[in-house]
């Protein structure tokens, strides 16, 4: 099992969710985060002083998937989240060693 961590533009969440649903991934955990990268933040003005807000609002999605599905899931996410403009985000894949479903105590791929 792998943990896919995708950082995307907030307004793409729904599309990513739907794309994942199509390939049978029906669980995920979403966090509101701030991202910093090549996409430069904007300048804000407050009481006459300009200042740069480097951190832009992003959404982070954690999705645990079976190994076989990783490639497909990444592709789906990448497609759905893409606008082609800077700041679209990244996808990282981390190994997962164990998984447990709290409700039933099931383990491994059963959990998903």
């Amino acid at each position, binding site marked *: 099992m792998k943990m896919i961590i995708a950082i995307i533009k*907030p*307004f793409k*969440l*729904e*599309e990513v969710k739907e794309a994942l649903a199509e390939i049978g991934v029906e669980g995920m955990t979403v966090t*509101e985060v701030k991202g910093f990268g090549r996409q430069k933040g904007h300048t804000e003005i407050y009481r006459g002083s300009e200042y740069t807000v480097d951190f832009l*609002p992003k*959404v982070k999605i954690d999705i645990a998937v079976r190994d076989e599905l990783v490639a497909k899931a990444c592709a789906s996410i990448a497609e759905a989240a893409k606008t082609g403009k800077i700041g679209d985000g990244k996808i990282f894949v981390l190994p997962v060693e164990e998984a447990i479903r709290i409700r039933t105590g099931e383990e491994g791929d059963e959990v998903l």
Partner: protein
Amino acid sequence: MKALSKCLAGGRTAWLLAAIVAVCAAVPVNAQEAGEAVAYLPQGTADILWLLLAGFLVFFMQAGFAMVETGLTRAKNASNIMMKNLMDFSIGAIAFWAIGYALMYGGNGGSFLGWDKDLLFLGSLTDGQDMTGSASWFFQVVFAATAATIVSGAMAERTHFVAYCFYSLLISALLYPTTGHWIWGGGWLGSMNMRDFAGSTVVHSVGAWAALAGCILIGPRKGKYGKDGRVNVIPGHNMPLAALGVFILWFGWFGFNPGSTLVLVDGISHVAITTALAASAGAIGAMLTTWVKFRKPDLSMTLNGTLAGLVAITAPCASVSTGSAVVIGLVAGVLVVFSCLVIEHKFKIDDPVGAISVHGVNGAWGTLAVGLFGQRSIDILYWGEDTAITDGVFFGGGFHQLGVQALGVVSVFAFVAVVAFAMFALLKYTVRLRVSEEEEALGLDLSEHGNEAYPDFLSESEHAK
């Protein structure tokens, strides 16, 4: 088309009749004969103006209650609190129009309950004939709403909404008019010269004792008391809104107390300053108490202290000196802190906003304070020889007035507690008084109204397609 405007515009020749009538009526006879054109404002019109303005301010207190209550409770119940504050006024106003006012002020009843079938639906068919009566109804309805809304905060975060709607109907149609009749409507307590000038007992205690009965019957919020009896803290979600609410309430109280002269007389200014001073002293009293007791000055309790001072001065505002007002307020501020703690920790009654302590305990304190600090020399500025109070205990008048006040406090408590208990019990076994455990955990906004108060996460993602 508007009278003055037309006049200015010169575009029309016809004047508003009303304006002419007003002008004519207002010109003193001799002045008129002498061809003088200066008109004066009739005292009766001024009285109506005063009642309405004060009533507007009291109405605005609904916003204050809504803000205080939502500030001191959790975000997941914020919409529900708004609905309750909106509906207790709305339902209450219709109920008071339909029947409450007839029961409270109808002259054909007895000393226990009023009655006048011509006042049902405010005599809608003969509308406009009695403008003074209309002003009086307006002033009374906003008071009734205040009594009703007190319960909202005390029973917050767990009460079934439909039960709350029925409760609003009952308190404004029946419960409030009854005790109101006793003291203000020509009933038996009023006849004994019990002094409750603006309603420490009639309004605040009535609301608070109903809240007490309701809180006991409904039980504490889930998680408020641990299995071991431990008291858990359930903090509110927005202290600035709570503070805004207190400022609004204080502002509205300047209608509540001075307006209770009911006529526009010089005496309104003394009432305004006793009100301001007692509130200030209440804030200071509560702040110092928390500072000593908790080692830090606590905002939430200081807000309660301000309101406690206001509730306490409501009965004696036109009977005591400014010095006494400060003392009454200070005591209220101290009292409210201890009362909140005792009710929460000893009695294990869960009142999220401290309404019982603020309105009930301090309503009683304020009513009794008339018997302690009352001065006939001040009271008589507002009342007649035979209706003015006797001096209070601290001003050499002995215990007579205190006795009358105590009788009022006790009998209102007994009556309201019993009737409200019955009323809530009835609601419990009919429409359900309390939401289910899951509904409570989910929050009343979602379970009762199907929406959230702060649905912001969504707005960034789900819907921006």
